[in-house]
Every structure is written in structure tokens, then in C-alpha cells.
């Protein structure tokens, strides 16, 4: 056991900075991907309530497609597949777009549940008080929705953060790919992959705990 830990002590100053740099890339694609997922998800969530049947069908189709196809298949399609029809992405933007579009489907469901929990009367009251639709949405409805959906939003972010590891398979130099590079350099894959796993855990675990706490509080508030 001590021997095992000793390996870390000897290599910490070689591995540490490189994995820290890679963690920045992981964080960047996760955050940018999540921002895209939030924007697209909100639009989809609102559009699901649209009066036009065509709009609703398109949104349904989007959600069914992205819920039914693995994130990895989407990343491969964007990064390796689209150049075949002339659309070329660099690896990192491809990862952001792929993660963003895939998780937008999940965010759409989260927003739909949140928007559905706000009584229609809120919209009507705000509009009759002279608010425009956009103002009603951003000033009256969303602030309330945010409180309801805080926990599932964090859960979705953690899932996206974990799936950002798939970007390693389309050559984005994030944590897992840097881990692979180190593993081949030092021939210590067990040590290195445990370190990599620990770095994800350090971010994901506190967020998961926060989500649990918020969910519990929300249940308490409703009861």
C-alpha cells in the first residue's frame, strides 16, 4: 500500500501540472457545452408548449433522436462524419457542439417540468400588467422556474461533465486523453487512471451532494 502511494509522491510534480492543464480543458468543454445545452434546451422546452403542431413535432423528434442515440455516436458523427459533407469542426468545438446538442434534449425536459409547475395565471397577470412576453418570461417566470429546477439542472451538469470524458475519443486533449498519454509514457496506467478518476470525483461529488440537498429542500418546501 505504501509502495503504491510512494509512486504518486515520486511522480506528482510531473503528472500534476499536466493533468491540471487537461482538467482546464475538461472544465471548458463541460461549461461551454452546458451553456449551449441550456440555451437550446430552454428554446425547446418553450417550443414544446407552442400552439403550432409542426413546431411541437419537430421538438419531439429532436428529443427522441438525441435521447435515443449515444453521445459518443453523436460526437463521432460531428467530428469524423460531417467533414464528409464539407462541414469541418476542430475537435474541441465539435465536443462542445455534440455535448451541447445531446444534453439540450435533457435540459428541454427539465425546463418543461419547471415551466409546467408555474400556473398559467402568472403569465396572464404579468401580461395584463403590461409586460411583454419576453419580459414576462425573463422577469416573472424564469426566476421562479430556476428555484424549482436547480437540483435536476445540477444533476444534468454532472452527467455532462462525466460525458465530457468521451471527447478524449475524438482527440480533445482533456483529462482522459492526457491520462492515456501519461499512461503510455510512464507505464503506470493504474496509478494514472485512478488519479484521473479522482479529479472528476473532486468536482462531481460536491455538486451531487448540493443537488441532493436542494432536492430535499424543495420537497420540504412543497410539503
Amino acid at each position, binding site marked *: 500500500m505504501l509502495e503504491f502511494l510512494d509512486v504518486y509522491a515520486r511522480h506528482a510534480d510531473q503528472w500534476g501540472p499536466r493533468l491540471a492543464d487537461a482538467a482546464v480543458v475538461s472544465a471548458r468543454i463541460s461549461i461551454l457545452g452546458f451553456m449551449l445545452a441550456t440555451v437550446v434546451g430552454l428554446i425547446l422546452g418553450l417550443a414544446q408548449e407552442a400552439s403550432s403542431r409542426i413546431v411541437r413535432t419537430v421538438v419531439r423528434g429532436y428529443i427522441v433522436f438525441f*435521447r435515443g442515440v449515444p*453521445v459518443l455516436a453523436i460526437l*463521432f458523427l460531428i467530428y469524423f*462524419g460531417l467533414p464528409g459533407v464539407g462541414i469541418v469542426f476542430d475537435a474541441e468545438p465539435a465536443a462542445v457542439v455534440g455535448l451541447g446538442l445531446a444534453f439540450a434534449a435533457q435540459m428541454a425536459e427539465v425546463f418543461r417540468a419547471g415551466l409546467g409547475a408555474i400556473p398559467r395565471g402568472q403569465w396572464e397577470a404579468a401580461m395584463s400588467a403590461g409586460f411583454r412576453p419576453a419580459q414576462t418570461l425573463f422577469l416573472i417566470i424564469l426566476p421562479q422556474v430556476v428555484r424549482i429546477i436547480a437540483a435536476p439542472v445540477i444533476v444534468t451538469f454532472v452527467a455532462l461533465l*462525466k460525458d465530457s*470524458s468521451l471527447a478524449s475519443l475524438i482527440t480533445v486533449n482533456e483529462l482522459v486523453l492526457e491520462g492515456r498519454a501519461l499512461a503510455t509514457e510512464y507505464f503506470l496506467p493504474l496509478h494514472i487512471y*485512478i488519479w484521473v478518476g479522482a479529479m472528476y470525483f473532486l468536482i462531481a461529488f460536491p455538486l451531487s451532494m448540493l443537488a441532493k440537498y436542494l432536492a430535499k429542500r424543495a420537497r420540504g418546501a412543497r410539503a
Partner: protein
Amino acid sequence: MEFWLSTIMPGLLTGAVVTVSVTVASLLIAVTLGFGLAVLRQFPRVRLLNFAIDAYVEFFRNIPALSHLFILYFGLAAVGIKITSIPAAIIGLGLIGAAVTCDIYRSGFLALGIGQVEAARAVGMTPVQTIRFILSPQAIRVALPPLGNYALQLMKDTSIVSAIAAPEIMFYARSMVTSSFQTTLIYSSAAMVYLLMSLPLAYAVTRLEHRFGGKANA
């Protein structure tokens, strides 16, 4: 079109057989091990056991599956424990899945309320009998829709075992790309094959949700 029929689709469907096998095998591990953990977690007095189960769940739920698979497949091989790719995939996804289903069953148990336990105790049932005959049958019913959702997620997650060389759909897609360069066609066909498998599953989940009531958030 001919190339698609003669080469791409047969390749992807060969992979799909492995995808389905890995999904079913790891699903079996996940639903049984997860149930065991959730039942053990129902005995509130054994602190250490509860801590161990919680630690198991958080460990597997807060680290990417890819990271777990690399530890199992590349990491353990370096210290002399060699697991070939398909068993490593099944064990890895099964252990991760047990953490997920443990949470699902637990919210099933939580949904039942303390009155059930008190009533069972009042008619003289032991704690084990209460769990066996009163709580479990009800908790499993509540857990069915989220378990179905999990199965769908698992089927999609098997795509990442291509990274440890298990020959499923994405693995075949990648190897066909290196020999034919039809990237757009191959990867969109792969997405379509997944979609064809997940649509019936998603439909079944919707039916379960209608039958057994609302979505319990796991």
C-alpha cells in the same frame, strides 16, 4: 447503396449483437446487485454498512464510466490482473449500474412511508419478513419505470466500451471507416442502428410510466 447493404449494415448489425449482449449481461448484474445494496441500506442501525454502501454509490456515480473502464482494463492489467475487453465492459457497466439502480430502489422504498413498516411489525413480522413480503414487492413496482429509463441509458452507454476494444457497434463503425473512408454514411448509419434499438425501449418505458404512475426522480 450496394456498399451500404453489403458491408456497412452487416458490420453494424454484428456489432449490435455484442451491444445487446453486453447491455443484457450488465443489466442483470446492475439490477440484482443494486437491489441487494438497497435492501441492506434499509437496516438503519448498521452505521458502518450504510457508510460503505453510500461510498460505493457515490464512487461509481461521480466518476465517468470511461474512467472506470480504463482502470479495469488498462490499469489492472498493469498489475497482473488481466480481464479481456468484453468481461471488463460487463463488469464495469454492471458495477456502475448497481450504484444507479441502488438509488432507484431506495427512492422506491422511501416512497412507501413508515406506516407500512409499523403495520407489518404490529402483525408480528420480523424486519426481514417486512422487507421480503411487504416493502420489496411495492418498491419494485415503483422502481420499474426509472429502471426502464436506466436500461435505455445503459444500452447507449455500451457505446463507450469500444474504447477498450470490445467489438460493438461503434467499434465496427470505426474499423470500417479506416478501410472505406465513407465516414458520413457509416456514422449516420451507426446512429440509426442505435435509434432503431432505443425507440422500442423508449416506448416500453412510456408504457411502464402510464401503468405504474409518475416518474420517480432517481
